[in-house]
């Protein structure tokens, strides 16, 4: 097991390095010039060059990457002389448009995205899995049909449509949310009611999409597992249905959901662009989309893209370890 862990861990570090390098490379070869965007229309070539130097974009991309990595571990100074600005480690860069260390911006946005992801995760997992089990148990009865209809609606509604409909025609129409409150981060420790009110509709929107997938997945897994020989054996030896479901069927049927859930959750941690955008939640998704659409703030774009990828890669590792723990065959096979 230790050997397995060590190998997976080193592979993950390699992937993280490769991902961050490719993100750097992709954004470096693009013809977008962030230095030219730092000043308005009355820009002159010397000013752009000075800004390019200030942004650290006048050196080859490999040197830029080296500085970026170094900044992550020991912090980094941006600018020179009186305009010098220090970002302590881990420094993701300095946003000249917002005059802030990118790490600060990310740290401000992360609790919002985390709240959104955790709440939606709990909601979709509980609804999706229980609906899936119900549908599998009551196969071809009305409960099953209702679950199928739910799956169809959930998978057919693009997030921006369900988000818009719920925001405009439920939340705003009946004054259930305060639009100004949505734009600020409210900690659940300070004001749990406001926190809940802010997030309940975004949770529903996100959960609607994911719960549908999980319902379908759980339903087909439970049905498939129920026809296994060992379930028949359990029934033959006289176990009651409740124990069969809990101890035998669900254990096998729900194991693959660990993988799915881990990756979906990690994907959300990188920012739910559409949901955060529609509900104006100041999370990572809104931070990154604004960085693109407002001023092409390259340090912020790089940081959020790399972070989102790192979340997924790390979740992959955790899910694999967890899976090796749940299912011993994985350890042996590797």
């Amino acid at each position, binding site marked *: 097991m230790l050997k397995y862990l060590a190998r997976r861990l080193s592979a993950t570090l390699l992937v993280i390095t490769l991902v961050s390098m490719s993100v750097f490379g*992709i954004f470096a070869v693009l013809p977008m010039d962030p230095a030219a965007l730092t000043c308005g229309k009355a820009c002159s070539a010397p000013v752009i060059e000075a800004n390019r130097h200030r942004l650290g974009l006048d050196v080859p991309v490999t040197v830029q990457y080296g500085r970026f990595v170094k900044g992550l571990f020991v912090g980094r100074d941006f600018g020179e002389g009186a305009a010098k600005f220090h970002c302590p480690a881990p420094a993701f860069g300095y946003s000249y448009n917002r005059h802030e260390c990118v790490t600060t911006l990310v740290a401000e946005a992360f609790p919002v995205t985390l709240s959104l992801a955790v709440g939606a995760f709990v909601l979709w997992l509980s609804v999706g899995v229980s609906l899936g089990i119900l549908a599998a148990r009551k196969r071809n009865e009305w409960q099953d049909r209702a679950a199928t209809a739910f799956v169809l609606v959930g998978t057919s509604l693009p997030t921006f449509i369900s988000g818009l409909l719920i925001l405009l025609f439920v939340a705003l129409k009946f004054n259930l949310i305060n639009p100004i409150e949505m734009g600020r981060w409210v900690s659940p420790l300070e004001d749990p009611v406001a926190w809940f009110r802010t997030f309940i509709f975004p949770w529903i929107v996100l959960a609607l999409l994911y719960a549908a997938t999980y319902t379908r997945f759980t339903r087909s897994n439970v049905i498939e597992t129920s026809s296994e020989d060992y379930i028949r054996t359990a029934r033959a030896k006289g176990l009651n249905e409740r124990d069969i479901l809990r101890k035998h069927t669900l254990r096998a049927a729900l194991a693959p959901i660990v993988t799915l859930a881990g990756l979906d959750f990690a994907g959300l941690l990188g920012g739910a662009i559409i949901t955060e955008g529609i509900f104006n939640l100041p999370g990572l998704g809104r931070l*990154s989309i604004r960085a693109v659409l407002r001023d092409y703030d390259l340090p912020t774009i790089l940081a959020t893209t790399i972070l989102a990828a790192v979340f997924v890669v790390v979740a992959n590792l955790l899910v694999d370890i967890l899976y090796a723990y749940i299912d011993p065959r994985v350890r042996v096979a590797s």
Partner: protein
Amino acid sequence: MADVVLTEETQEIAQRTPKQIAWGRFKRNKVGVFAGYATLFFLACSILAPLITRAFGVDNHTIYSGVLNEFAMPKGAWGGVSWQHPLGIEPGVGRDVFALLLYGSQLSFLVAFISTFASIAIGMLIGIATGYFKGKVDASVGRFADFLLSFPGTFMIIALSLPLVQRVEATGIAHDNAARILVLVIFLVFFGWTGFYRLVRSQTMSLRERDFVMAAQAMGASSWRIIVKELLPNLWPTAIVFISLSLPGYIAAEATFSFLGVGVQAPASTFGLVLSDAVGYWRDDPAYLLIPCTILIAIVLSLNLLGDAIRDALDPKAGR
């Protein structure tokens, strides 16, 4: 042991080809048949947009006068729905929503069809090649596909589309909306081919161990012949199911990206563009938001239902 009793139905099945069996199964699925007709209806409307708009006496660029009131809102109930303008009037400008959506659906279907078929073609090619020949290439392609999964695809598309559109325009291959559509399709395919590739690869790996492939190999058939004559015919059902379930996803994706401002821009119109415009009017003219929403949902829903029915017909065991 009871004797095998051939019922009327099994006898009937025994005389039919797999294609006929699947078709028969599909025809019995009433929801699926209805979804099929609905899909055909939407597709026909989209293709025949020029004829239909002419029949209604409207088009998608005329700014109609006298249809908006002094607040630039459509006159009449339900966003100005009338015999002349069946789906109402665009507030603020005064174009006909019916014509806007008909022409917009052409773009949506175009993006969805090209993306789907390109993803399928690439996934099929790479999936068969890696699944059949295995080896080092297979391992590295697999790693690359896993690697792609870790990127935040939606965000990368948004962040990279503006600079890439500029680059495409600089080369002179395409301009304006053509360039935007091209870039969007390239991105959708780039992040979308891996799903079908995985499916084809695993199916190819199991098919190549089957007796009929071994028999062909024993008779000295070339790899090319085995792939084209033995493997491909067995992979078509998977491809058809995947196509029918991917199309609604790409329609929704196109709408989402144009809603976010990536992809086609005005004066062209797609569902996403109309909806992002409609958000500004939701209190005064909710019909302008709800009508396109309903139609888009109807299109995606009927494509999904059709896809489910096709899957059930071709592979009755899967997912049910």
